[in-house]
């Protein structure tokens, strides 16, 4: 829809852009955040904040690709600080118990879902969870979102060489754990 400047008050261009970005990236990014945070609600909130930030900065971003990169950075950073303040977690648990709605689903607790997963999946995910944070982030972005090394470097604010090194170390550890388990 055409951009219309209604006294600068309504910004259809930003709305449209966000709607497109949302359609393309919302689910993937929430799942990425969830892989890093292991908390449904916290994951959605981190990604929601990232989208709001892009909307508010749309006048300077103005480009789909740049926006996607911005979103990834914001999500990874959001997930990191979410982990840092693990207080987040207690708060959500408390909220979940306090409210009758199922808004807050704390996924870790779902025994049923766990049972549905094959053992390989859960041992692999478990091993991934025990890796250092950077390695975990790199491998998750790589093997879940299929991001390139450059994209991962950009999202994490580290050099391409560091991405390689983290990936290598992470994969080596995972391989060792798999072999030890079998």
């Amino acid at each position, binding site marked *: 829809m055409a951009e219309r400047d209604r006294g600068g008050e309504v910004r259809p261009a930003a709305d449209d852009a966000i709607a497109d970005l949302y359609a393309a990236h919302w689910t993937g990014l929430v799942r990425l955040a969830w892989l890093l945070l292991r908390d449904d609600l916290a994951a959605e909130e981190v990604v929601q904040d990232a989208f*709001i930030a892009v909307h508010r900065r749309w006048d300077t971003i103005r480009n789909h690709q740049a926006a996607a990169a911005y979103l990834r950075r914001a999500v990874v950073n959001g997930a990191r600080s979410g982990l840092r303040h693990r207080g987040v977690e207690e708060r959500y648990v408390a909220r979940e118990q306090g409210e009758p709605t199922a808004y807050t689903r704390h996924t870790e607790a779902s025994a049923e879902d766990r049972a549905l997963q094959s053992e390989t999946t859960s041992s692999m995910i478990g091993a991934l969870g025990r890796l250092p944070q950077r390695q975990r982030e790199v491998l998750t972005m790589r093997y*879940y979102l299929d991001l390139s*090394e450059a994209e991962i470097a950009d999202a994490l604010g580290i050099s391409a060489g560091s991405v*390689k090194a983290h990936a290598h170390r992470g994969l080596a550890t995972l391989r060792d754990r798999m072999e030890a388990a079998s």
Partner: protein
Amino acid sequence: MSDRTDFLHPDYEPGEFDQVERHLRQALARDVQQVHPSHRLDTILHEAHEAGPVTATGGSGPRRWVMPLAAAAAVAAIIGGVWWSGQDDGGGVTPPVHTGPSVVPSETAPDLPTTAPTSPPSTATSSATGGPVTTQPVSLPVYFVGPIGDDKPTYKLFRDFIRDDLPSDASPVEKAKAALVLAINAQPYSNTDGYLQPWSGQTIGSVTVTDGLITIDLANSGNPDAAVTPEIQRLAVQELVWTAQAAIQQTLPVRFEVAGASTKLFGSISTDQTFTRPGKDELWKDVAPVWITSPARDQVVPAAKPVVVQGLAIVFEATINWELKRGSTQVATGHAMASIGAPMQGQYSIGLGKLSAGSYTVSVRELSPKDGSVSAEKSVSFAVK
């Protein structure tokens, strides 16, 4: 995968990590299957607008709409013209019927009179041809006159999708007749939704489409006691117009005939004219500000699935407020944005997430820009099991 050789450290042995990469990829893909993000686009847009843009100067002050300015925006929206290209219900969130314009076969619309001569009050199914007719359930868009939910009350049109069994080869004209028969009987919804019954005592005769004109035969001219104000009489006529046009899937002008003669419907509206629905920027003349299209009335939603409330709204600044109650206890409230504000009709969507089992009512409201009172409200009850 393309830059895989880039990705891994140069001194890795070829194939060293093939297996672990594959396992990891699969594990991640499976693991995320349990995550079903709720729908938050409305919240994102709303909060982004609340917060306002981050400008180069660093200012991100609050942006409160100034009323006169909003009025100007509304005018701008009118000038802006057509928002989506589908016809009326084209933006409809509920999919069963497409009312696209101009996709209908040809102008030689079938001139087949359905059922019966004009007079007998047979409550008409469709064509009574001999032999077994296979029927199938279809969902017909039917319009009703109901209260918009302010405290006057004001009445406007609401759309419901109603299931009916029709011959599997039913033509648009036959569907129109079936839908009209449903439209004149609001009784099943008068208790739950307060729909009026202005056509009490009416019978739909034949429905024909010729030369780009829909003609609806009525058994009588309507009882003024059942439609007590000029506005309700007008809306009563319009509900038939909207219903017929939706079934025919073309915005053709509609003419009424009462026993083949011209007369005045409800003693006041001449049948010597054609009727149609208003243009896109004037839908509010006929259409209620808030429709809920999903969940349907009394729908049962599985507890495993997140509940999403969807609908159409012609509301100030595209803003709606909502409240979710379980039984009589409020469990959540919030606001959402429709895709466009009044005078255009926008789509909205509210993600409620997964709900625990129980009976719920969701109310979607427009608040008066003047004093914050409820200027329109629609509620729907549903169950989660």
